[in-house]
C-alpha cells in the first residue's frame, strides 16, 4: 500500500477567484499533473460547499478542464449580495481563492 500525506491544496495547486453579481467562481489548477486525479476525486462540488459552510447560500457547480488539469467552481448566492450589496469588506470575494486553497487533500507521498 502506498503512503498518503494530507496537505492543504496550496501546497500542490493555485487558484483565482472572480465574481459576477452574487455568484463567485474559483478556478483551481494543480501544479503537477500527477496530482490532478486525487484533487478531482476529493475536491468535489459537495466538498467545496461544505468547506465554505454558510457562506454559500446557493449551490456549488464544478466544471472540469482536464487537459489543463483545472477545475472551476461556481458558487451561487455566495457573496452576501455581491459587491454592490454586501457588507463584507471583500464584496467581490477576491480573497476566496485562498479559502479554497486551505482545503486539505490526501495525496500519495511518492507523487510529492
Amino acid at each position, binding site marked *: 500500500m502506498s503512503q498518503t500525506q494530507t496537505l492543504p491544496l496550496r501546497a500542490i495547486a493555485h487558484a483565482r477567484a472572480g465574481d459576477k453579481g452574487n455568484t463567485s467562481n474559483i478556478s483551481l489548477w494543480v501544479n503537477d499533473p500527477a496530482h490532478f486525479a486525487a484533487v478531482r476525486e476529493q475536491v468535489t462540488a459537495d466538498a467545496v460547499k461544505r468547506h465554505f459552510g454558510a457562506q454559500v447560500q446557493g449551490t456549488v457547480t464544478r466544471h472540469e478542464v482536464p487537459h*489543463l488539469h*483545472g477545475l472551476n467552481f461556481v458558487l451561487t448566492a455566495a457573496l452576501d449580495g455581491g*459587491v*454592490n450589496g454586501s*457588507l463584507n469588506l471583500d464584496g467581490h470575494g477576491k480573497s476566496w481563492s485562498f*479559502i479554497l486553497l*486551505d482545503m486539505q487533500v490526501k495525496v500519495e507521498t511518492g507523487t510529492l
Partner: protein
Amino acid sequence: MRIGCGAGFSADRLDPAVDLARDGALDALVFECVGERTLAFGHRDRRADPQAGYNTLLQTRLRAVWPLTAASGCRIVTNMGAANPMAAGRAAIAVARECGLRGQSVAVVLGDDVTSLIDADTPLPLSGCNVGDVGRDMIGANAYIGADAILPALETDAGLVIGGRLADPSMFLALLRHRFGWDAADWPLLGAGTLTGHLMECGAQITGGYFADPGHKDVPDLAFVGYPIAEVRADGTVTITKLPQAGGMVTTATVKEQLLYEVHDPARYLTPDVSADFSGVQLTDHGGDRVGLRGASGTTRPETLKVTVAFDGGLLAEAEVSYAGRGAADRARLAAEIASTRLQRVHGVTEDLRTDLIGVRSLHAHADHGLPVAETDVRLRVAGRFESRERAEAVLWEVESLLCSGPAGGGGFRGRITPSIVTHDAFLPRGDVPTRIEVLTA
C-alpha cells in the same frame, strides 16, 4: 496584429500604458475601464453635472499616451466614456488640441444607454422580480454592446474610439474583425477573438498581477508589472506576451488563472458577439514570457443583450476601532456588542449590522481552517447600509464613543460614509438597442 491593454479597470496604473504606447510597436491599445459600480457612479455624476459621468482619468491617460500613439499610427479603443461618452469625446478633443494633435478624430460609439427603455414593468429575471419591485430609485441602465457597434467607428480614420458600456472583450474582437475581415457569423473565429479579449481585458492579471504568493508563486519585479500584448493571427490563434523590460511574467500558470477568471461554464462564455467556448483551449509555453493559445471556438450569439440596471443603494457606513495585546479579541467582541446594542436601542437602527474582528475573522466569517490566530492585534469593524444619513452617522458616532465609554485600550478610530448602489440584470432584444457613431475632429 499587435494589441496592448492599457488599463484593466477604471483606476488602473498609467506608467505601464505609457510604456506600451512608446515601446510596444502596437496596432491598437485598449483601455478597459468600466464596471457595474463605475458606470452607476458615472450616472450619478452626470445628473449633478451634464458634462461629467465619464472616467475621471480620461484626460490624464490621453495626455500621456495619445501623442505617442498618434505618432506611431496606433489606435486607442476605450470604454472610458462610461455614462457620458459624448462628453468624453468632447473632452478628448480638448486634450488633442492641447497636445497639438490637430486633425485627429474621435469616433464616439452611442446607444448603450437604455435608461429610457426601462420602466417599473421591466423584468429582472435573475432577481425574480420587476424593476418596480426593487423599491429603490433607478439611477441608469446600460446595455452591453458588442463588436457590431464598434466596427463602424473603426471604419473611420479616428485615432481614438470611445464608448460607454462596450463589452470588455468586444473592443478587442472589433479590432480583429476590422483587421482580418472575419465574418459576423463565423462563430468559431469570433470565439477565438473573444478569447484574446477575455485574456487581455484585465491588464496585468495575465502578466503576473493578482498572482504572487511569496514562496509559492513568486513574480519578478511586481512593482513594475507590465501590461500585456496580444499577437493575434488571422486564424484566431494568439500569443500573449509583455515588453521584455517590464516586470511580471507570462507563464502557462498566469494564463490559466485568467482563462477562467469570471467564467462559469468554460464551454459557454456569453458576450454580445458570440457564445464562446474556451473548453478546448490548448496552451504552449514558448519561454521568454510568451504563451500561445489555440483551440478556442464558439457558437451562435445570444438573442438578447444584457443590461445593467443601477439603483440608489443608500449609504454604506463603516466605522473601526482597534485593540492590542492579550485579550484584544475579547475586548473587541465586547465593543461590538455594545455598539450593536446601542445602535438598536438608542438610535432605533433596524437594518442589518455586520461586525468584523479584523485580525481574527473578517473576510470569511464562516470558515474554520484550524489555523492559529494571534488575537493580539484586533480591529473591530461595524458596517451597515442605510437610507437615512442620520442612522449612517450614528454608526460612526457609536463606534467613536467607544474610545471613552467602551472596553479598555481602544484606539485608532476611523469612520466613513460612502454612497452605495445596487445593480440588477435585465435583458433586451438586440433590435431595441440601435447604436450609432459620431465623429469629432480636433
